[in-house]
């Protein structure tokens, strides 16, 4: 047991993933890896599909807002839903005519630079470290979030866009209660409404938001403005304390919302609603 090549002074194991921990420390990183990979694969496939993202009155959140629409694709949004009308001629032929490609980079960057997801993928994908007191992937000169990783510091700009997208998705959720001008409720309306609720809980629990809304102040009680911001900071802090939970719930639900709209549009499942 005391082989000097595997145990350093102090008896610690050396090398990647080496540890004397006896619990199942690897479950966390493995679940994270599987969960994130599954989402990325599905989202990429769904974004490149360019079809079956709309079935009145539901629009998949992956495709909202519809900047241009390629109306001949099956399950595409009608022209009236598109901000700038029909599909542009300048679009490169090697890329599919999918409006999601205009949209997904924004939430993608938001989640990629999120302080929670950073923890998740640094642990699960880059092994720095895979788990606590478990050997990190050896690196010649570890630089953390300095050097080329400084871009992570611009997370707040991704937040600004994410807040804007909540407005778009709220509008989509609202109109999902109206089919041909008639108010009603469908399973799809509930799915899209929950999507906005979960995304709002995730976005408003953002660490950058928590800082900007009030955390940056040194004094919470010095004037009426800072007292109001302190109140907001406390509420954001409540969501922030569960940021990981909202990160996963909202991630799963946004994917599920796309899948739901897709399956209804494909005719594989029938939307239960008050209109039919």
């Amino acid at each position, binding site marked *: *047991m005391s082989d000097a090549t595997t145990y350093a002074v102090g008896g610690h194991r050396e090398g990647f993933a080496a540890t004397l921990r006896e619990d199942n420390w690897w479950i966390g990183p493995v679940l994270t890896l599987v969960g994130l990979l599954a989402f990325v694969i599905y989202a990429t496939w769904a974004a490149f599909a360019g079809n079956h993202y709309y079935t009145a009155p539901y629009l998949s959140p992956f495709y909202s807002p519809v900047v241009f629409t390629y109306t001949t694709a099956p399950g595409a949004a009608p022209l009236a839903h598109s901000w700038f009308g029909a599909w542009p001629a300048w679009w490169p032929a090697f890329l599919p005519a999918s409006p999601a490609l205009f949209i997904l980079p924004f939430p993608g960057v938001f989640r990629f630079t999120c302080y929670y997801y950073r923890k998740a993928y640094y642990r699960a994908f880059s092994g720095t470290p895979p788990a606590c*007191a478990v050997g990190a992937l050896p690196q010649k000169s570890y630089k953390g979030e300095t050097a080329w990783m400084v871009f992570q510091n611009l997370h707040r700009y991704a937040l600004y866009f994410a807040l804007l997208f909540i407005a778009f998705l709220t509008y989509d959720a609202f109109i999902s209660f109206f089919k041909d001008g008639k108010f009603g409720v469908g399973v799809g309306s509930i799915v899209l409404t929950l999507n906005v609720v979960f995304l709002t809980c995730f976005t408003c629990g953002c660490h950058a938001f928590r800082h900007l809304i009030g955390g940056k102040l040194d004094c919470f009680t010095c004037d009426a403005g800072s007292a109001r911001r302190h109140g907001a900071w406390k509420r954001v802090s409540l969501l922030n304390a569960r940021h990981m939970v909202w990160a996963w719930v909202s991630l799963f639900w946004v994917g599920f919302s796309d899948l739901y709209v897709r399956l209804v549009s494909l005719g594989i499942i029938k939307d239960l609603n008050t209109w039919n």
Partner: protein
Amino acid sequence: MAKTRKFRIWRGDEQAGDFQDYDVEVETGMVVLDAIHLIQAEQAHDLAVRWNCKAGKCGSCSMEINGKPRLSCMTRMNEYAPDETITVQPMRTFRVIKDLVCDVSWNYEQNKKIAPFKPGPRDADGNYRMKQDDVDRVQEFRKCIECFLCQDVCHVLRDHEQKEKFVGPRFMIRLAGLEMHPLDTADRIPKIKEEFGVGMCNITRCCTEVCPEHIGITDNGIIPLKERVVDRYYDPLRILWRKLTGKT
């Protein structure tokens, strides 16, 4: 009721060492430190272990138990299965002096680098005043017992050995407590970015996981400091605004 439990304790010094096995009669309610004391009293009188309060408040008895950085006085024996061998080691990040005792003086050196609390002028009646809402936020950081378990587990110090570039989580929360203090007037942000190395932390939160005082080291201390550094050094619009208006 006494039960025989198996221990594997690392014995040695800075040069070399080895695990040694001990069997010890453990009573109900004992903690790992009690068992180590029994071993020291009955079988290994020269076993070095640092402790003081036995109440989780002095921060002396930090070590690694079954691979996890823990306070040995707060780790109950009944957390482990009766037939489990309990492995005990010194902390990894610091130089071993003897057996379970490390030289943690590097931490005190880091502490000295931090500009101390510098309050502004007193109120007219000669007092300093601070409201409870402001106290609440910084009080969390004052719970630190300087056990240095967070420093031990932090992979920047532990695995990547970047002690020159990062002061570690314990001192990040000291800095956070000072920077967020409403009466403090010193500006530590430039040093937090450069010398103290907040950018070296990749917010993987192991410090928070091991802190026996349950301080939200990463979420309440380090991330807010990172955001303050962003305000000063990385946010292009804010930098432009400062240039144009001269305001902060």
